[in-house]
C-alpha cells in the first residue's frame, strides 16, 4: 500500500516535471526603474520600479546586487500605531511577491529595494548596473538603472 502511494506520488512528480519546468520560466518585465540620488553623507539608498508578471504563476523578488554597494535587500514599509503616535519604519523581508498576471510596485514611501553599504556614490544623471533576483528558477534580470532624485514622470 505504502509503496503504491509512493509510486503514485513519484509518477505525479515525473508526469508534472515538464510542466513545472515550463512554469519556471519567470516572465517578469521591469518598468521605470530608478535609483534615488542621495546626499553624499548617506551610505544607503533605494531602488524603485514596477515589476510586471505576465505568467500564470506567482513570482518573487528575492534580492539584487550592484557593483556600487555591498548588498541589496527587499524591504517593506511598516506603520504601527494610530494618529500622532504612528511610527513609520522599514523591515527587511525574504521576498516580495509579484502575483500571477499582476504587478509589484516599488515606490517611495512603500516597498523598495534597499541598497546598503554604498562603495561608490550614485550620481544624479548617471546609470548604475543593477541585477535583480527572482524566484522560482533563481532568475536574474540585468538592468541599467538611472540615478535621479524623483520618480520618472
Amino acid at each position, binding site marked *: 500500500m505504502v509503496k503504491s502511494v509512493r509510486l503514485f506520488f513519484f509518477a505525479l512528480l515525473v508526469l508534472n516535471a515538464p510542466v513545472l519546468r515550463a512554469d519556471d520560466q519567470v516572465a517578469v518585465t521591469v518598468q521605470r526603474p530608478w535609483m534615488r540620488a542621495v546626499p553624499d553623507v548617506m551610505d544607503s539608498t533605494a531602488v524603485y520600479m514596477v515589476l510586471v508578471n505576465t505568467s500564470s504563476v506567482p513570482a518573487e523578488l528575492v534580492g539584487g546586487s550592484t557593483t556600487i554597494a555591498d548588498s541589496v535587500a527587499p524591504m517593506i*514599509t511598516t506603520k504601527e500605531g494610530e494618529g500622532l503616535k504612528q511610527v513609520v519604519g522599514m523591515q527587511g523581508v525574504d521576498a516580495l511577491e509579484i502575483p500571477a498576471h499582476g504587478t509589484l510596485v516599488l515606490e517611495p514611501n512603500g516597498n523598495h529595494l534597499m541598497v546598503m553599504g554604498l562603495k561608490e556614490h550614485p550620481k544624479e544623471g548617471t546609470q548604475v548596473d543593477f541585477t535583480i533576483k527572482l524566484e522560482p528558477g533563481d532568475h536574474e534580470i540585468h538592468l541599467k538603472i538611472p540615478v535621479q532624485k524623483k520618480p520618472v514622470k
Partner: protein
Amino acid sequence: MSVVSPNTTSVPNPPAKRPFFDWRVWTVAIVLLVAVGLAVLFGVKQNAQQGFFGMRLFPLKTAYDFKLQGANGAEVRLDQFQGKAVLFLFGFTHCANICPTSLTNLTEVYQALTPEERKQVQVVFISVDPNRDTPQTLEQYVTSFDPTFIGATASKPAIDQTVLAYGGSYEMVAGPTNQTNDYSVNHSAYTYLVNPSGKLELLYGNEKLAEVSKMVSDIRAVLREPRS
C-alpha cells in the same frame, strides 16, 4: 395545526381632514427650512476657513520651543524663526526611503514658492539618531536638498522631550546583522507646520507631502493669516 381565521378588521373612522393651511404644519416647516439654511451657510463658512490640505489643529496652541544643536555649535530653537512658517519633521540620515522622499517633496514645495515667500519659510529636519548623526553630517545631508534647510539634533533626553511635546514617537529596531551600529529607526513621519505666530497649525502625513500644489496653497494661506 389549527387554522386561525383572520380577524375581521374594523375600518377605523377616517381622521378629520386638516385644513391645508394648518398653522402648526407651516410653522414646523418654516423653522426646519431656516435651520437647514443656517446650517448650510455656517458649514460653507467653516469650510472656507478650514479648507486646508493638512490636518488643522484646533484650538491653535503655541508650539513647543525646541532647543537643538545645528552645525558649528549653533543653537537651533523654534523661537528664533518667529515670523516665519516653520515646517519640521523627525528622521535620521540612515533612512533610505521615507526621509529622503519627504525631504525631496519638501524641497519641491519650497522651491515652488516665490522668492519672497521662501524668505518667510524655514524647513528643519530633526534627527532622532544623535548616536550616528552629528550636527555636521546633518548639515551636509539637508543642504544637499536645499541650501536653506536646517538640520538639527540634540542629546537623547532633549530629543525625547521634543518628540514627546509634539505627540510623536520613535524606536530603534535592530538591523539584519545585529551589530551595534546596524539599526533602523521607526519614527513619526509627520511634518509639522508652525505658523509665523509660533502656533502649531497643520500636520501632514508623509504621503501628503507629494501633493506639491496643495502644500504650497496651505503655506500661502498660513502666511496670509493675521498674526496674533
